């Protein structure tokens, strides 16, 4: 057992120095606006130019074939540098692992390079008005047509979909089969004929996600991921990525906790013991999540149910950390236009315990699949 990171020192230094030279001096406009979305897309292109947009991917798709440890180091440096949010994260973290696992060679070459460069930004289209935590109850359908499928129905809470280029998600292709059977995993352009997008304002009014209406939207067979009818397995194979380290890497939280400590020092609460406990708690938990990440990549088993443990922990840490920051700011904790982006982080954090499977679902997964408690009894 050791925590010797020196083998990654050279890589860390390269990333740090590149970020120091390239991270925009003032924050980009919010990526939930049209102008901000374009600015973040441009940033992805710049990252890609330095081969830093998808460091853990194979070189042929624009990556560097980095080890998981190098990837963790990249993330630490990225967030410590205060670099822009990743507008392409849903593609990179959720669809790409699915393509590596279940995609064809043709799909990988068509989709991955343009995802790596930010030329094509992807949005996840899983939830439906009647299918949230109970995703397997989804009703949007796809029926066979010549050389492809016709998609109908409605998807919702689709992050980035207001401005993104393509979407991905499961549709019901065999209504006679059981809940988890008869689903097929599709990808589609969001400007395809028959798709209507309606942006949805989030808690603070910004249009962070969208609903999508499908009216006989044609998708060719070549854009189906995995076998028809195998969509549930294809989807579940990568939920670990959505819940665990990949989507919310430790670097985000260690960087935010460091900023919180600075905020506390300069606040009027530096002598307040209750506030001190909360600040220290956030710092300690961010460190715990970082070390837990090292433990996870030291084990050969894949994320699976363990990612549910991560998800409950980081989502609650994120909320508590940002609540503490707003409390330290006192009356300014209400301001949405203050320096430091604490409010943006707070509003974003509030969604964490809900998306990617609510924390109640994660606790069921932990109890049943890790602790071995009997299933059922919702």
């Amino acid at each position, binding site marked *: *057992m*050791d*925590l*010797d*990171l020196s*083998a990654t020192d050279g890589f860390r230094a390269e990333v740090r120095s590149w970020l120091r030279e390239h991270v925009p001096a003032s924050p980009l406009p919010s990526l939930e606006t049209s102008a901000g979305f374009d600015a973040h897309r441009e940033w992805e292109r710049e990252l890609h130019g330095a081969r830093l947009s998808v460091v853990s991917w194979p070189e042929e798709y624009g990556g560097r074939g980095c080890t998981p*440890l190098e990837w963790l180091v990249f993330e630490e440096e990225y967030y410590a540098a205060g670099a822009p949010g990743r507008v392409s994260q849903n593609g990179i973290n959720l669809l790409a692992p699915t393509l590596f696992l279940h995609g064809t060679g043709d799909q990988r070459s068509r989709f991955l390079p343009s995802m790596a460069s930010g030329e094509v930004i992807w949005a996840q289209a899983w939830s439906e008005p009647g299918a949230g935590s109970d995703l397997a109850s989804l009703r949007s359908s796809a029926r066979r047509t010549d050389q492809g499928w016709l998609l109908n129905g409605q998807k919702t809470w689709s992050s980035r979909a207001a401005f993104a280029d393509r979407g991905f998600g499961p549709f019901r292709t065999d209504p006679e089969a059981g809940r988890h059977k008869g689903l097929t995993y599709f990808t589609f352009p969001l400007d395809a004929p028959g798709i209507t997008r309606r942006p949805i304002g989030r808690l603070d009014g910004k249009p962070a996600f969208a609903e999508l209406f499908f009216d006989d939207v044609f998708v060719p067979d070549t854009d189906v991921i995995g076998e028809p009818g195998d969509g549930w397995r294809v989807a579940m194979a990568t939920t670990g990525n959505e819940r665990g380290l990949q989507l919310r890497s430790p670097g985000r939280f260690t960087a935010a906790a460091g900023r919180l*400590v*600075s905020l*506390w*020092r300069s606040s009027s609460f530096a002598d307040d*013991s209750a506030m*001190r*406990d909360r*600040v*220290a*708690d956030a*710092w*300690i*938990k961010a*460190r*715990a*999540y970082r*070390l*837990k990440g*090292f*433990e996870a990549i*030291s*084990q050969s088993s894949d994320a699976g149910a363990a990612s549910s*443990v991560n998800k*409950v*922990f980081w989502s609650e840490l994120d909320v508590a950390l940002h609540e503490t920051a707003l409390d330290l700011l006192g009356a300014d904790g209400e301001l949405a236009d203050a320096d430091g982006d604490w409010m943006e982080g707070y509003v974003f954090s509030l969604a964490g315990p809900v998306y990617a499977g609510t924390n*109640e679902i*994660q*606790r*069921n997964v*932990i*109890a*049943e699949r*890790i*602790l*071995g*408690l*009997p*299933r*059922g*009894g*919702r």
Partner: protein
Amino acid sequence: MDFILNDEQELFRSTLDKLLSAADVPAATRAWASGSPDAGRSLWKSLSEAGVFALALPEASGGVGLLPVELVTAFRVLGAYGVPGPYVETVAASVLLGPSPLASEWLPRIAEGDALVSLALPEVPYALDADVADLVLVANQADARLGLPGAAHESIDPARRLFSPAPGEVVSSGDSGAAYNLGVLLCAAQLSGLGDRLLSLTVEYAKTRQQFGKPIGEFQAVKHHLADAYVALEHARPLLYGAALSHGSPDFARDVSAAKAATSEAAYFASRVALQVHGAIGYTDEYDPTLLIRKARALRGAWGSPSAHKSRVLASLDG
């Protein structure tokens, strides 16, 4: 970088685990609490023969160490079974004894499992099991002195017999900080092991205890309590091993404090969940898991409270 136990460390862990699962630790604990330390002393000897104290001492004193990862692994197992006795105190005291004239006599005795040492420090005012200890030390920032047991106090955990020792003759000079930091690490290790074991005992209970015609572990409200305890414990353990690996570095004090704060809170939370899920039986003196439930409360405050350690963490972060 490889942040998991290697095969040798895992073998050592499972050896200690087998040793303690074969012994009747609850009976030894109850006897210890009532002033009959023979069974506890016998366990002490067995654990010493398995190498527990050797890990803390240099070769010159009959040890193989100091090996912080192995020590933490051993103390997690001691915590899991709630083994009574001043284990943490004895190892912490060995740091103070090292530079003293008493070293040549006492360190080999500690290595051989032939010496129970009790200890009081500014942050640890009560000397654990000072009445049965072969040696009592009282130390602070200036020096370490021999101590006499002094006034007795009752703990919520009757197997922790506490005393306010009276300081006597000086045995060495120097700061007790290093002894404190090592004790904090090992107390955190006990809490981590205790929390894990209480959770697993409680999960087993929830699988077998039936109400409303089914195991209570099938109810979502019960599942979520247990899942939350698991999440907390799983994120406390890496802080513990992270601290073990920073032994000897300038971050050691910060890291043991982070580990103690997190393991105290996680283990205490697990003890509350254990009590709630067990229901009335968990509240009884006769039930074995109760021995761990009350020890969680005691160890949370021993060797520095979570709040004290959080304060130390922040103080160690330079602006």
